[in-house]
């Protein structure tokens, strides 16, 4: 097939071929058509001028059965949803508004043929509160020494539009959402995801919803560094505050190693010592940068967010969630 195509494209075989798909090529055409070359070139030029075609929502492409897709979504995620709640969760306000306008434009009488679709606003709010509460509890349980701003930053990162839209798109929520614009804007998609979580909580209970959030949102934390999510401007000040709260001696920075100090690519390693014992060391381009990095390493160790911490156990479903305060699984 590929050899045949190569021969035709190099004009060795003086035949047009009927291209069906990647593996299928029919060379059984009657004769060489004189208009074929001109037509192909014009179509190529047109395609190059117009650029790629605009994306079409999956619901407008072939082979789409909405009810089947919604059921399949539930089966894929291994959760039993109540289908009306789930379908309500996918309906956004902008969609309702655009539908009403379309019907009005088409001349339908709104009183007789009212849209009896409900909005996902309440489900969205409900789901958002539940998610934020669950994630905060989980965070406080697995990192007991992380302060409130840290917990808020981690939860904010996980419920932020980037992470949630990434997860939603990969769970094919974008195909099922009913919204006015396509591609679905990030806030709408995020709202739909929250609504789905709300629907799950109302159908199967908070334990199953918690497991869902743990399996899809908490896993996005794997491989992430604490200070990517939590912007700390003055790590040294924060470290001093933490240590004085615990009653440990204040840190003294000392230069441990330096390389190429008078070159354009210097490197300094600064260590923080409290009471003559090494807390943490960090590298940097300048001495100040190295000191700041050492403070960050010390903070990571204090909060138990190091790279060599014991990973969170995603296998055991029931016992952990029912007693969030008693767990110390993700210890330093």
């Amino acid at each position, binding site marked *: 097939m590929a050899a045949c195509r190569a021969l035709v494209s190099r004009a060795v075989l003086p035949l047009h071929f009927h291209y069906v798909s990647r593996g299928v090529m029919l060379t059984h055409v009657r004769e060489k058509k004189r208009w074929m070359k001109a037509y192909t070139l014009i179509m190529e030029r047109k395609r190059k001028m117009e650029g790629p075609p605009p994306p079409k929502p999956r619901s407008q492409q072939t082979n789409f059965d909405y009810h089947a897709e919604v059921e399949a979504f539930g089966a894929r995620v291994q959760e039993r949803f109540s289908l009306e709640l789930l379908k309500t969760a996918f309906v956004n306000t902008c969609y309702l508004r655009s539908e009403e306008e379309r019907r009005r434009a088409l001349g339908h009488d709104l009183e007789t043929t009212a849209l009896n679709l409900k909005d996902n606003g309440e489900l969205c709010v409900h789901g958002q509160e539940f998610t934020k509460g669950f994630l905060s509890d989980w965070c406080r349980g697995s990192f007991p020494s992380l302060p409130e701003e840290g917990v808020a930053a981690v939860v904010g990162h996980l419920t932020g539009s980037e992470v949630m839209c990434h997860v939603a798109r990969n769970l094919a929520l974008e195909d099922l959402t009913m919204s006015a614009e396509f591609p679905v804007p990030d806030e709408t998609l995020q709202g739909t995801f929250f609504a789905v979580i709300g629907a799950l909580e109302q159908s199967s209970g908070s334990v199953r919803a918690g497991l869902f959030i743990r399996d899809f949102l908490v896993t996005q934390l794997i491989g992430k560094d604490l200070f990517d999510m939590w912007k700390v401007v003055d790590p040294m000040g924060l470290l001093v505050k933490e240590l004085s709260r615990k009653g440990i001696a204040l840190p003294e920075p000392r230069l441990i190693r330096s390389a190429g100090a*008078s070159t354009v690519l210097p490197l300094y390693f600064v260590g923080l010592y409290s009471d003559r014992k090494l807390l943490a060391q960090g590298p940097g381009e300048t001495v100040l*940068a190295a000191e700041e990095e050492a403070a960050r390493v010390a903070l990571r160790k204090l909060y138990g967010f190091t790279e060599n911490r014991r990973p969170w156990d995603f296998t055991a479903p029931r016992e952990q969630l029912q007693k969030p305060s008693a767990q110390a699984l993700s210890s330093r």
Partner: protein
Amino acid sequence: MGCLLPQSPHCWQWATFARSWFLIDARMQPPGKIASMCSVRLQGKHKPIYHPLSDIGDHVVVMNTRHIAFSGNKWEQKVYSSHTGYPGSFKQLTAAQMHKKDPTAIIKLAVYGMLPKNLTRRTMMQRLHLFPDDVLPEDILKNLTEELPQPREIPRKLSEYTQEERNAFPMLWTPPEDYRMK
């Protein structure tokens, strides 16, 4: 104690790929051993991220090259030859003559011969800094990272032993009073 190892920020990548400056004192050391230590560090073979095309060698500063110590009779027997290609320009110098002419030449030639014979060799030689005595310029002193241990343990001269140590050393036989030592 916890993790002191690299985590995501770019400063840890900076630290991994930074060039260090090593210092070696060549006093009373065999130049071959010094040269092999230098060549290992100039190529970057002491790093786990080594690759021949990566250019991750470090700088090496060798001081006191004037005071190197060849073993055996190499000062008189080892010959450095060179020929510029023109007739009558074959020069042969013993190690002693070469050392007198240029105190850094012996180590320089030894390291040059131990580096891989490709185009990266000249760059690595530019990163080797040789000083005949222990007087180093200030900017090089500022750049140094660590000093490497000397390959050869320097034996002590008889004059460096104290009288008590000399007396405590066991004697094979006690000579009589009127015995004359040459």
